[in-house]
């Protein structure tokens, strides 16, 4: 059994992770020195842990208890650079042959960590690394005096360079990790981390090169949320994609559209905007304006043109699954090792859609169009969680004029205890819709809104869909 003491670097000195305890309370918390002093980073830690938004339960769970309480030796006020140390502390707890230890004298190894860990397990750079090392100088000296093995882990790149410069001549093993899996491997913990990035290689005490993996991760994000980004800035998107392709040296396959003949086109950049023409599903629920009333016809004078009743805009909604390619997995899709394939979700009438299988659904893509000048969308989650990998496009907020089809992509957690069930409400009108969208968000059900909106020449359609639990 290997015992590790974990320290989180702060500009006020290194703060030790004293213990991590499963709790039955709903929210995870970070407390100082076993007191009731709850640290300000607690809400961030809670998000970091919980399924859906966080990675701890995803990588080390499922857990019997709802939350964790972490006790640390000092204050951690702001930022996210605690994430790497906290992730590794959880990894120690999950490993059968390792343990987190508070007693430094009894520790086999002392870990000093700083870095952010994103949803895809990339370790990203943080500020003030040199200042954090200076603030820990006395502790490094004390540990050296005790003859302890001290391991410093930070993000590969500038943070690693800064660490080497600041600790030159000190007996500290310095590692730059490109992802949390690499960081875990340094401590012999990689086996307990469920996700292994495609092609992940172990970090070495030598200098690490992070450009390629960072670019691959960015590429994955681009591919997943690419269409929506492309819709906003196609030229910039194309240049960015080209740059990423050059950096990674990897071929970038075109995302398969929901076409009847799926012909894969290798080594091309996903085409921005202008989605391929596709069969437009009939709007689920379309409220039509009342039939026009014919004006009275004057006897003597020629009849004036009948009053023009504005048409209610039409709306098109297409829901597609982001499926892994043949032989691939959602994990590969999320980590940039495989391109997702778009598969339309069949509509079964009245806005309902056929249930999708979680294992083959890495995410969902919504392609929304309307004949009105403005378009707004509200996704109401009935059960389960989703991950908003890319921001909902501003063009779907109802406050700016739009042309053409707008795309919004979300990712789904791979493991879920309950199905992801949702309703997608889409509004289209020639008038701005921000106020109506806000009102729609507050409604318990949308039924009552149809008539009122239709009277104002606003069309509302509601689509429902469900992705099974695991």
């Amino acid at each position, binding site marked *: 059994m290997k015992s590790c003491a974990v320290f989180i670097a702060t500009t006020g000195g290194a703060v030790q992770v004293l213990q991590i305890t499963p709790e039955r309370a709903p929210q995870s918390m970070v407390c100082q020195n076993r007191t009731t002093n709850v640290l300000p980073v607690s*809400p961030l830690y809670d998000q970091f842990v919980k399924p859906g938004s966080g990675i701890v339960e995803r990588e080390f769970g499922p857990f019997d208890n709802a939350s964790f*309480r972490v006790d640390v030796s000092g204050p951690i006020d702001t930022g996210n650079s605690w994430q790497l140390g906290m992730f590794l502390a959880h990894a120690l707890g999950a490993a059968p042959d390792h343990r987190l230890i508070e007693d430094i004298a009894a520790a086999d190894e002392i870990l000093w960590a700083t870095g952010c860990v994103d949803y895809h397990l990339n370790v990203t750079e943080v500020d003030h690394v040199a200042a954090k090392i200076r603030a820990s100088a006395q502790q490094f000296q004390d540990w050296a005096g005790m003859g302890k093995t001290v391991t410093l882990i930070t993000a590969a790149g500038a943070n690693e360079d800064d660490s080497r410069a600041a600790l030159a001549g000190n007996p500290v093993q310095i590692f730059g990790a490109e992802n949390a899996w690499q960081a875990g491997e340094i401590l012999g913990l990689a086996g307990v981390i469920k996700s292994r990035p495609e092609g992940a290689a172990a970090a070495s005490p030598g200098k690490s090169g992070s450009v390629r993996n960072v670019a691959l991760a960015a590429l994955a994000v681009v591919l997943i949320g690419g269409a929506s980004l492309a819709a906003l800035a196609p030229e910039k998107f194309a240049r960015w994609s080209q740059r990423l392709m050059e950096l990674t040296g990897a071929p970038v396959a075109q995302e398969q559209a929901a076409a009847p003949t799926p012909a894969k086109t290798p080594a091309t950049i996903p085409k921005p905007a202008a989605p391929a023409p596709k069969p437009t599903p009939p709007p689920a629920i379309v409220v039509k304006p009342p039939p026009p009333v014919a004006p009275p016809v004057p006897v003597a004078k020629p009849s004036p043109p009948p009053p023009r009743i504005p048409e209610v805009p039409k709306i098109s909604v297409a829901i597609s699954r982001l499926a892994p390619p043949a032989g691939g997995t959602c994990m590969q899709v999320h980590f940039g090792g495989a391109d997702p394939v778009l598969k339309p979700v069949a509509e079964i009438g009245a806005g309902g859609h056929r249930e999708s299988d979680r294992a083959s659904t890495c995410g969902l893509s919504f392609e929304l169009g309307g004949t009105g000048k403005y378009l707004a969308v509200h996704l109401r989650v009935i059960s389960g969680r989703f991950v908003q990998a890319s921001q909902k496009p501003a063009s779907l907020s109802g406050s700016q004029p739009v042309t053409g089809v707008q795309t919004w992509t979300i990712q789904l957690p791979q493991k879920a205890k309950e199905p992801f069930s949702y309703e997608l409400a889409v509004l289209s009108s020639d008038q701005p819709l921000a*106020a109506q969208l*806000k009102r729609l968000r507050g409604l318990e059900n949308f039924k009552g809104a149809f008539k009122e909106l239709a009277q104002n020449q606003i069309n509302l359609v509601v689509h429902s869909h469900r992705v099974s639990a695991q």
Partner: protein
Amino acid sequence: MNSYTITDDKQIDTAREIFSDLNAMNDVLVEAANTGIEAALAPAELYAFALGTAGPNGAKVEAALRASAPIRAAFQDLLARVSEYHVPRAMAAASDDIAVRDGVDCKISIQPSQAAPDQVYVIVELTRASSRLPKVMHLMGAGNVYHRAELPEFHDGIAQLIVESTSEIITLIQHPDTEVYLK
């Protein structure tokens, strides 16, 4: 002439709520004047205390609430008018300590900490969304006992505190005669 710029609906909602609260405070003070209540506090101090901004006079207000039944009655009346969530007295069927208190659209529960046996979690759950989330928990116990606890931010309708298991807030929550107002 003064000009004001209202930038969004939230500001309007906030203004509406503040005016509504001020109106409630005014009603309380008028009633208090009619019944001969003479408060040693400025109305603004009591009002600010009820709304969560205790300020430097918080201790003075708290002491007055403990010492003066009329002030306490006026304060409770104010809370009843302006609080969006209320947990009434409990109908205790047993003499055991109560671990859960149910109110209208809210619930307060106590959960022991596994990490520190002498500490407990106080979990405040809102089951109805509101435009303004409560910031303070006011506990009005039997025999002029009053306790106030600032609430942390709500996430997914839950605010969670951790306190010593022997603290006054726990004693009050577990007592069936305590009424709780969330404001």
